[in-house]
């Protein structure tokens, strides 16, 4: 699904970039790879991958994000180490970039190095979000991101969901729209995300791409610890 | 014993100054005093007035609805405060600028032509001193000697003004005394 040594995840606000990035990085680490996850979200001060620091540390993912007081500072901090990751890191690197073309602007600041690195630029889309209701708006956003980041899109990741109310139809419909988006961009759909534990209910029959199980690691501050209500996660087998 | 008075006139007629001098003289006498001005839009045109309380013990309300004495330097001031004065109190008004009689019959009414008296003494600016002297004469709220000392102190830097103002003060005092002589007066504190 993510094959290059450097995977850059972009998309609109709330498309699920951070969940995809965290789960992808943790998956790579479980496969025995050396992984660094760079939190490049300089746009919003909450719901960032740095909030998954503990979970990432447990599986050995190296989180590159402002620490201590700076973790909650409303400051667009680009760590010097990120420039190092672009050139001299011996493992896999996942970059979680802030929302839409504003968040992707930070890639422009790194473009001198990124252009030379072996990378994928993946657009994460959730068509059940107001910013990208259809493939056309997703393509328009992709073009804007390409412009500010000075990079070309190399793939689309389908992440359409409705949280707890997601059904297989929602995922299937989202995947079809992702395929049309990818077609217009001239790139493949590299993967589709489904909630961990509900793969049997939700995963499309013929995805034609990898399926990534997404475990919610980062909580929006408004939600608090998630209270399980139903679903196979809690069915005793 | 507590004595409350309202001093009112046009802005510039010296009502606030008269009030301050009364309060100051009261303080010099060892009394408790408060001086409270009307302020704000009223100060521009209309009446400028202040309330002075002189008392043997700490002054309660500095705001007074029913004063024992009124000094009205012009007609609007008389119109506004005439009815507020307590029965048995004193109303002193400046006949130079008031073209009617005082309607109250249950108070001591003292008409004094403050501006005319000051003009006659060759000191047109001294009308407020005439009024102050007359008010002290009519109410005896503070001793005249204390007020005279205050005038000397106030004009210490302009000695030429001391005598002319004392003249006005005494003229007003004399006029008021002649007016109230032989009448029943409301008691003033500590006199």
């Amino acid at each position, binding site marked *: 699904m993510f094959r290059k040594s450097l995977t850059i995840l972009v998309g609109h606000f709330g498309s699920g970039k951070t969940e995809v990035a965290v789960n992808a990085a943790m998956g790579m680490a479980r496969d025995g790879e050396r992984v660094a996850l760079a939190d490049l979200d300089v746009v919003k001060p909450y719901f960032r991958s740095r909030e998954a620091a503990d979970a990432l540390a447990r599986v050995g993912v190296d989180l590159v994000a402002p620490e201590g007081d700076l973790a909650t500072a409303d400051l667009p901090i680009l760590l010097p180490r990120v420039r190092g990751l672009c050139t001299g890191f011996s493992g896999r690197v996942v970059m979680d970039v802030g929302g839409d073309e504003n968040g992707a602007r930070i890639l422009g600041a790194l473009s001198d190095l990124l252009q030379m690195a072996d990378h994928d630029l993946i657009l994460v889309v959730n068509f059940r979000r107001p910013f990208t209701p259809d493939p056309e708006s997703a393509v328009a956003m992709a073009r804007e991101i390409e412009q500010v980041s000075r990079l070309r899109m190399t793939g689309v990741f389908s992440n359409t969901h409705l949280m707890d109310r997601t059904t297989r139809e929602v995922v299937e419909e989202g995947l079809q729209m992702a395929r049309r988006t990818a077609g217009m961009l001239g790139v493949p759909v590299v993967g589709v995300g489904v909630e961990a534990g509900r793969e049997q209910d939700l995963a499309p029959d013929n995805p034609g791409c990898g399926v990534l199980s997404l475990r919610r690691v980062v909580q929006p501050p408004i939600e608090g610890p998630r209270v399980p209500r139903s679903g196979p996660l809690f069915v005793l087998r | 014993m507590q004595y409350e008075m309202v001093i009112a006139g046009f802005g510039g007629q010296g009502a606030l100054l008269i009030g301050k001098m009364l309060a100051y003289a009261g303080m010099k006498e060892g009394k408790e005093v408060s*001086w409270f001005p009307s302020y704000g839009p009223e100060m521009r045109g209309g009446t400028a007035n202040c309330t002075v309380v002189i008392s043997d013990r700490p*002054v309660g*309300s500095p705001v007074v609805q029913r004063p024992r004495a009124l000094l009205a330097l012009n007609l609007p001031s008389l119109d506004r405060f005439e009815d507020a004065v307590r029965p048995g109190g004193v109303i002193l008004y400046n006949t130079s600028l008031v073209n009617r009689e005082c309607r109250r019959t249950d108070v001591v009414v003292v008409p004094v032509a403050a501006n005319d008296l000051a003009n006659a003494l060759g000191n047109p600016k001294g009308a407020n001193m005439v009024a102050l002297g007359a008010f002290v004469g009519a109410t005896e709220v503070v001793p005249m000697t204390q007020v005279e000392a205050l005038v000397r102190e106030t004009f210490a830097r302009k000695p030429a003004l001391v005598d002319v103002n004392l003249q006005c003060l005494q003229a007003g005092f004399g006029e008021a005394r002649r007016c109230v002589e032989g009448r029943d007066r409301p008691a003033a504190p500590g006199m």
Partner: protein
Amino acid sequence: MARKLMKGTEAIAEAAIRAGCRLFFGYPITPQNEIPEYLSHRLPQVGGTYVQAESEVAASNMLYGASGAGVRVLTSSSSPGISLMQEAVSYMAGAELPVVIVNIMRAGPGLGGILPSQADYLQATKGGGHGDYRVPVLGPWSVQEAANLTMEAFDIADRYRTPVMVLGDGLIGQMMEPVELPDERPPAPDLPPKTWASTGWKGDRPRAVINSLYLDADTLEAHNRHLQQKYRQIRERERRFQMRFEEGDYDLLVVAYGTVARVALSAIEELREQGRRVALFRPISLYPYPYRELAAAAEKARAVLVLELSAGQMLEDVRLALGRSRPVHFHGRTGGHLISPEEAANRMVEVLEGRSQEVADV
């Protein structure tokens, strides 16, 4: 000490100088202009500095700077100006800086008018600006007390490292009364030294950083706990109040602060001459509010009457103190109208004779 006849505003200004304040930052607004006017004249005579700021916002931030550098500093304003100052008041509360702020209240809301009012009570006593903070608030009822409390405010500010507000209605500012002031009122001997102040760092103490920014949630919560601990101390030690006619029995307890309490006192004196049993409770510290003392004072009374130049602000604290133990009645004037002694007396009689309606539940 010779008695002098002084306006409240002048007495406050002179008292600040006697308390060792040599710095004033402010911006003109009626009805407190005599304070900056007086100080612009007096401060240079005593080697002090007067700065007319470009706005209340700037003035209060100048206070923040000067106080952070460890010097006693004063500002004064009136209601709309105080609202503008709240930015820095919150910062000063957060950075724990001692300053004295005088608010000579005028009628609101908005531009309102320049006439007397007590309508800033809630703003003053419940913090005033953003964030969890409180500011000790003192409400004088005479010119002499305004001077005394101003001098004391500097000590309270230094003792607890907090802004302190002297809250006067327009009458306090404008009336003249005899005042006695000490030639010099040195700071209380037991005040802590200002080792935290930014006076230039020579390595002999921790580096001074005057700041209210705490990015980490735990650190900020700990800072807030520390502030709340300080406010608890203030609530324990700094409650001030006065009672009149507390000896013997009374049917009605009147609660008022500032000059309104004097109006109430005159009314009560007159009613007592007629044999009516009325007593007066006057909070002097409005934060901390003397809740316990008020509750104790109300035990003898059948009913309580609150008088204010507002639509009922201190009323909330009275109800907080009394709960449902006593019926609470209210009389307030707004817009700049004063309460006259006769008006106050009439309301007291209404309550005594059962012709007044208790304040309804909010």
